[in-house]
């Protein structure tokens, strides 16, 4: 069946008024995990929705859409940001890294090529439901890049933008500090 607007409208509401044109789609080029992709996006599309709904990179999660939970954390030019708080169109000239780009994982799902933080999260059982996990891990990568965290207390403070409702915080801190400790100290 070919659906037109008319067939679905109740008859008492005639669409006599002109249609409302909203933001039209336009080409937007994003570089995600090293791959350049051209998408057709309305300018009001957030980076988070672009990743999830238009590129099907659903590893990046939506927990609030308001910058309040950190589930959508990705790396933009190696800095952690909330993907729900930026528009895709603003990120055309940046390098975006999502959870899918952290490991060189192939289809065989061998865990040997995991990023050290991914490995540590598994070993320390730093999650339960796993929904906050990609955001936590991307945030932790950003944290290590920043190089400000020296102690477990620093990690707690600097990871507090990522909510975990399952309450896996002790495991998250243990996982991150274990990777911190095994890294050569660069100041």
């Amino acid at each position, binding site marked *: 069946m070919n*659906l037109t*607007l008319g067939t*679905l409208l*109740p008859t008492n*509401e005639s*669409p006599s*008024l002109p*249609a*409302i*044109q*909203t*933001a039209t789609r336009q080409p937007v080029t994003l570089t995600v995990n090293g791959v350049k992709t051209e998408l057709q996006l*309305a300018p*009001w*599309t957030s980076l988070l*929705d672009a990743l999830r*709904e238009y590129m*099907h*990179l*659903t*590893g990046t*999660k*939506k*927990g609030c*859409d308001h910058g*309040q*939970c950190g*589930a959508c954390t990705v790396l933009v030019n190696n800095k952690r940001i909330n993907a729900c708080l930026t528009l895709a169109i603003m990120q055309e000239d940046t390098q975006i890294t*999502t*959870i*899918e780009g952290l*490991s060189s*994982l192939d289809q065989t799902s061998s*865990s040997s090529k*995991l990023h050290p933080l*991914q490995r540590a*999260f*598994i*070993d320390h*059982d730093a*999650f339960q*439901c*796993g*929904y906050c*996990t*990609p955001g936590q891990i991307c945030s932790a990568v950003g944290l290590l890049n920043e190089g400000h965290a020296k102690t477990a207390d620093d990690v*707690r*403070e600097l*990871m*507090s*933008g*990522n*909510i*975990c*409702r*399952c*309450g896996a*915080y*002790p495991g*998250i801190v243990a996982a991150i500090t274990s990777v911190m400790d095994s890294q050569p100290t660069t100041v």
Partner: protein
Amino acid sequence: MTQYTGRPLNRVDGVDKVTGKANYAAEFDVQGLLYGYIVNSTITKGKIRQIHTDDARRVEGIVSIFTHENRPKLAWFDLSYKDQDAPPGSPFRPLRDAQIQFNGQPIALVVAETFELARYAATLIRVDYEQETHQTDLQANRHKARKPAVGMATLFKPPPPDPRGNFEEAFRNAPVQVASEYVHGSEHHNPMELFASTVVYEKGRYKSGERYTIYDKTQGVTNSILYVSQVFNIPFKDIRVISPYVGGGFGSALRPQHQLFLAVLAARELKRSVRVTLTRQQMFTLGYRPATVQTVALGASSDGTMTAMYHDGVAVTSQFEDYTEVVTTWGGLLYPAEHVKFDQKIISLDVATPMDMRAPGGVTGVTALECAVDELAYKLGMDPLELRLRNYTERNMNNDLTYSSKELRECFRRGAERFGWAKRNPEPRSMRKEHTLVGWGMATGIWDAFHAPARAEAVLMVNGKLRVSSATADIGTGTYTIMTQIAADTLGIPMEDVLFKLGDTDLPVAPIAGGSWTAATVGSAVKAACEAVGEKLFKLARKLPNSPFAKVRFSDVLFAEKAIRLKKDPAIAIPLQTLIDANGGAAVRAISTSVPNLLKQRKYARNTHSAVFVEVEVDEDFGTVRVTRAVTSVAAGRILNPKTARSQIIGGMVWGISKALEEESVMDHQFGRIMNHSLAEYHVPVNADIHELDVIFVEEHDDIVNPLGVKGVGEIGIVGMPAAIANAVFHATGIRVRTLPITLDKLLTAATTEVSTS
């Protein structure tokens, strides 16, 4: 071969979760998907006079708008809308009519080609209401408290037992008495994953015509399929509900939620695939832990023997369903007072129906009770731990049954030792670190060890791998992992060669995953199915020429290292692969149903227990409270995987901190609307709030609860935590805050009042 069960193994779904490969309900890619966005009522009670959708319809890319005016005909009777966790009453039906029963009620669904368009068009819908005055305030309506209606749900949530002895007289005569009122605000589950359903509509591929594949956020695919089938009158065979990963549940996904109804409705009408996702704000229109007011009175003789106990409570429910939970009767399970009286009532208000939320009723009631016990300890001048030991019971006094196992004494001992409780100076305000007051508090926790029937299938495939399945859920609890462990052990197959599948209505049926019963319930079914495969393998082994098993019985064999072996001499073995080959190269499969042994179980009380010790630091100037360390010592039968079980207990402890100190859904009663409906305003712990949390699993043997001897650990972690924190706050400050959460304003106000009155 070493056993897998009992070992702290990594999650089998770990790699999927850390790489982003785990797909949740809103993450299944479908061709030509439409997006639905829900519009919510802005009034609390009344009627929609008119709903203006014309502007929204003019937005290019809008496919349809559903309201009560154009909703298709659906099932008529309430019964069709009753899901497996429905309380007595008439379930809420989205878009049923013009009536508004609570604030934020879904009143329209906008369906568009993109999410952004649907969201935008939703803002153009205008609604004229006929408002009526509403009542949402528990305190202002306490005179309306009444007994709840009885229904199916009452089976699991029985009303309080009759009074025993003569409470009034015993209390009057008790030399030491305490009586206080405890007030808890309501709380929303707020799992991190937003509620979503993706309904894939297909036509023509199947003889029957239409087919719905539904990816739903649910703690029970069976519950979702029943609901969809009944409400929309779609035969089971045309629906499949799938839910491999659930981004947290905590009870919120026990009942089918609005988005499932609306997504199916739209897909069926439009004959297209539709996804509906709630916003975080809309998640505050779902069920919640109800606000309660409780009174606890305890009487004791001067040596600390509790003689009289009273516990009553009133909780909020909606106008259309009598939601209840077991709040006030836990004292009868923990203390052997002879004269007791329990009462429990509800008040119908113009709000959504509450829902089970992690340790429903248990954490509410035990918090009040265990705070009262602490108050009693201070009145007696007795150590709170000693008081609990003085009143230890080996029986559940409410049903007069002995516990199938109860290692609470050992929990107390080991927890106290790990925490250093013996060094505590009982005097309030006696410990300090510079400008912070330090307090130590403790409490007991208790929860049920349920067991329900379930089915599972096990298939030993031709390639020697074992596929096991049951339509249960893993909401972060570790179901995938522990079921894989159980199956691997039962048939002696390495875990890498076992694949456990769940969350799919094509699999053997299992009940909703809640109440800490999944390990026991589904675990027993998995074990039974694997054993049934084992018996078939045994029969094959006997038939082999010159079989060393020809003359032995099934009870004489065991399975280990991919072979069937003689128990007496495990070196005598036949590899499983040989047996599969003997099966004509066909897989060996069995489906089993595990049913609780009621005859055996009925004779015992079955519960998990915990002892919780907490240290808090309270800033004297600012009134801020931090839980600096906590030890929870748990007796929950056999622990299948100490790593995932520990995570569950830690999660529960974090929830306890949250309930005691942070979270509350604050309603503006003038509007009947929750004011803090976002994760910025609704406070849950962040990483910086959580410090040292320690978990001890006390050994507890139990062959009555179920064939596995497990009791479940999903709820017990939260139960004792809030009371232990509140008691520690008292020890630190000398102030009893009986209204949760204990926020700085409450502490500071109490401090000022105390100073001005002293």
